[in-house]
């Protein structure tokens, strides 16, 4: 292990096995991928607001996408597909689960590193070619994949179905396969580390909720991802080996009957959503966990309902595995099965309400410190409430008959797996930046970032629900092609303008993030007076995290203003109460 500690540049910063370095590598990779995916979304919003306009300058900047200054319909679909795939798997997963997860798990449970440091490094270096394949697919002869992030066959299985379904789609599948391999390595590492490497006294019921959520998310991921692996392999075989897993008899394309027999496209949808739905929880649960940690630290009180929250997480994990069919109510699946999925899906509102309301109740009798980290968690509460209740409309099969594949869906999933997760990524960044880089981010700029971001993104995505109520479908290159959508086209203009503000606000964040690396005020080991173990070591933490002695835990993770220290707090490693009272409450 010493190679990473005092080795040269390559072993220290590039092929590092140190979980903190790997966490940062994931985080920075996600930032780069986010710049791409956000830029694509801006091009999409520009086009959707003014589908008939010409943009000669953009045509010069992106010659492959535009023709005569107009975004081509097949490129529009490629941009939508790539925006979704990259954001979900290569931005949010990478920053939230892989980035923060790698960085924080060993620090919060008192471990010197991950259980398998080499596997950890391998997992990161498997993601790099996956990213390159994804981005590189734009240079495939007929462009990047254009079948949506769900890649439903036959569209995704037939190279001639539409531009982008040639090499571009093959590269997309290979990139996803590499992503799954990497994510599986990471998940195994998280589970093993949490189970085996907790420091003395760190029982499961003393783990911070961030660790709990990452632990449960990893278990969900390990169980759900193999279904997508299987689907990806079968899809690849259908494409390259002319098998017929997802391709039925009697397909006709270009006047030719294709030589496929006996497969069914619905099989892919089942396999895809068997992963796809749990994947939502793989992203949302760690977001909630980080939100709990932030609200406890900056609200100066124990989280409300720690144990009920953990049990709610477990129930969500179990239910989350058996409700995938709610994405398929109108797919042609049996309506009886659809009704089962509907009944089961809305059950999730129960544990999810417990989780969300415990977060809100964690403000009760708090002493709030309005840091950017806490502000973004407050923003998350607003987004979770609207997104969660909006989800009920889609989980109910009968109302989904109308709302399925409309902008209501687009608005809903952006609130849940874009807004909720991004707000937590921001909160986590403001919260752990001192531990990651030994400096503070500028708090005023953080507040500017909050005030520009939260109103714009929430209003923008809520307004997408209205578009969906009006009947506008997703993946729609030109909404004005439909007469009944023309009266609500103004909503598209409104949403785009609001989203441009939201995107511009992220420049404030990026400026603050990179500027603070150099100009931020030096942070001490525990700038927020936190209780969890990451605050017991220096900022930034050294290689192997602590000196000769690992911290020993003698209490739960959130002892703020309780147990005889009404104005103070007891870090997890503080010795038993009698000894601690004298020292900590005085400070």
């Amino acid at each position: 292990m010493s190679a990473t500690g005092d080795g040269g540049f390559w072993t220290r910063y590039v092929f590092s096995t140190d979980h903190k370095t790997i966490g940062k590598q994931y985080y920075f990779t996600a930032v780069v991928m986010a710049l791409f995916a956000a830029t694509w979304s801006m091009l999409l919003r520009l086009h959707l607001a003014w589908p008939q306009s010409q943009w000669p300058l953009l045509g010069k900047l992106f010659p492959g996408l535009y023709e005569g200054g107009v975004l081509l319909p097949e490129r529009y679909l490629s941009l939508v597909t790539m925006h979704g795939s990259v954001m979900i798997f290569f931005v949010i997963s990478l920053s939230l689960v892989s980035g923060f997860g790698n960085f924080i798990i060993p620090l919060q449970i008192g471990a010197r590193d991950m259980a398998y440091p080499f596997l950890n490094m391998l997992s990161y270096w498997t993601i790099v070619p996956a990213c390159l394949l994804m981005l590189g697919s734009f240079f495939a002869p007929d462009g990047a994949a254009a079948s949506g992030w769900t890649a439903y066959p036959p569209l995704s299985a037939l190279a001639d179905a539409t531009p982008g379904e040639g090499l571009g789609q093959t590269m997309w599948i290979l990139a996803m396969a590499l992503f799954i391999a990497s994510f599986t390595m990471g998940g195994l590492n998280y589970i093993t580390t949490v189970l085996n490497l907790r420091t003395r006294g760190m029982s499961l019921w003393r783990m911070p909720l961030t660790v709990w959520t990452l632990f449960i998310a990893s278990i969900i991921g390990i169980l759900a991802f193999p279904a997508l692996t299987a689907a990806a392999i079968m899809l690849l075989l259908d494409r390259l080996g002319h098998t017929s897993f997802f391709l039925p008899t009697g397909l006709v394309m270009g006047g030719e009957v294709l030589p496929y027999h006996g497969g069914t496209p619905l099989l892919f949808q089942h396999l895809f959503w068997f992963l796809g739905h749990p994947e939502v929880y793989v992203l949302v649960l760690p977001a909630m966990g980080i939100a709990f940690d932030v609200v406890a630290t900056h609200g100066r009180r124990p989280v409300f309902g720690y144990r009920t929250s953990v049990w709610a997480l477990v129930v969500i994990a179990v239910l989350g595995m058996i409700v995938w069919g709610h994405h398929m109510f109108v797919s042609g699946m049996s309506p009886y099965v659809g009704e089962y999925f509907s009944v089961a899906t809305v059950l999730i509102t129960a544990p999810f309400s417990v989780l969300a309301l415990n977060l809100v109740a964690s403000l009760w009798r708090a002493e709030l410190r309005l840091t950017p980290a806490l502000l973004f968690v407050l923003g998350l509460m607003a987004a979770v409430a609207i997104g969660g209740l909006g989800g009920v409309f889609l989980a109910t099969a009968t109302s989904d008959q109308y709302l399925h594949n409309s902008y209501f869906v687009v608005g809903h999933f952006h609130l849940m797996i874009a807004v909720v997760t991004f707000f937590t990524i921001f909160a986590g960044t403001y919260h752990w930046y001192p531990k990651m880089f030994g400096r503070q981010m500028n708090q005023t700029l953080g507040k500017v970032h909050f005030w520009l971001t939260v109103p714009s993104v929430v209003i923008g995505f809520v307004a997408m629900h209205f578009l969906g109520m009006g009947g506008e479908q997703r993946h729609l290159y030109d909404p004005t092609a439909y007469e009944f959508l023309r009266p609500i086209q103004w909503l598209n203009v409104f949403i785009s303008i609001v989203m441009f503000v939201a995107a511009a606000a992220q420049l404030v964040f990026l400026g603050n993030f990179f500027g603070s690396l150099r100009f931020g005020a030096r942070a001490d080991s525990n700038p927020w007076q936190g209780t969890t173990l990451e605050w017991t070591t220096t900022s930034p933490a050294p290689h192997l995290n602590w000196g000769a002695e690992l911290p020993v835990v003698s209490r739960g993770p959130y002892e703020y203003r309780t147990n005889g220290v009404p104005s103070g707090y007891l870090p997890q490693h503080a010795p038993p109460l009698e000894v601690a009272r004298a020292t900590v409450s005085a400070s």
Partner: protein
Amino acid sequence: MSTSRRQTAEIVGLIALFLGLTAFTVVGFARDWMPPVASRHGVGVDGVIHYLFDATGPVLVLGALVLSWFLWRYGRGRAAGSPATNARAEFWWSIVPVIGMMAITEVGVVVKGLPVWHEIYAKPPADAVAVEVTGQQFEWIVRYPGPDSAFGRVAPEFVSKENPAGLDRNDPAARDDIVLRNQIHVPVGRAVNLRLRGRDVLHSFSVASFRVKQDVVPGILGRTLFVPTTPGRYEIACTQVCGMGHYRMHGAVYVESPEEYRTWLQHQTGWLQR
């Protein structure tokens, strides 16, 4: 500004933000965005949507008020009581929303939703108008069984520009089948039993005004049922991404009076008899 006044100003701003976002959401949802409903089960679908709005809207408002109160009370630097764990409070804080949300949502799915769901997928009545729609890139091929009331045989190998439905010339039942592109004519007030076929990629047949949406899956004969209630022209949209022409894969359903429909039907000739 002193620190405490500044913090109070921030808290007021935050409360205004959260109440404002909630108001935007509630007022926006309350506006009637949906195109006027023009089918019988569509009224039921709208009923479920309105029920869910009426049931979840107050929950959202209540949540925003609680959040605002917490911010006002605990955000301005005033001393708060002990936040120590209180098992009773935790129990009630969990059990009430669990029961409340289960009741709201399962009433929506089962009590309100299931009868309408049944209407969509029920066995069609005997006098239903049978129409077959085939989705292909990027158009809707519409077929009526013709005077013999029986759909003739179709097969992929017969599909061509001249024979878009792929009718089998050797099947007598296929002789009188009527084939149209991107337009469906139906009489008002009678059930339409829609048979759905796909032959290339996935499509989804949807008519917003009817609250009808059903995927078209190659290899599976799909079906859906609706009763148009208002004469007029209604746009068909493809709502499952199907390639570069997805956005222009539209058509129209013409809902006509029974007489108009009968006249229209009499003027059609079988595709193979033209």
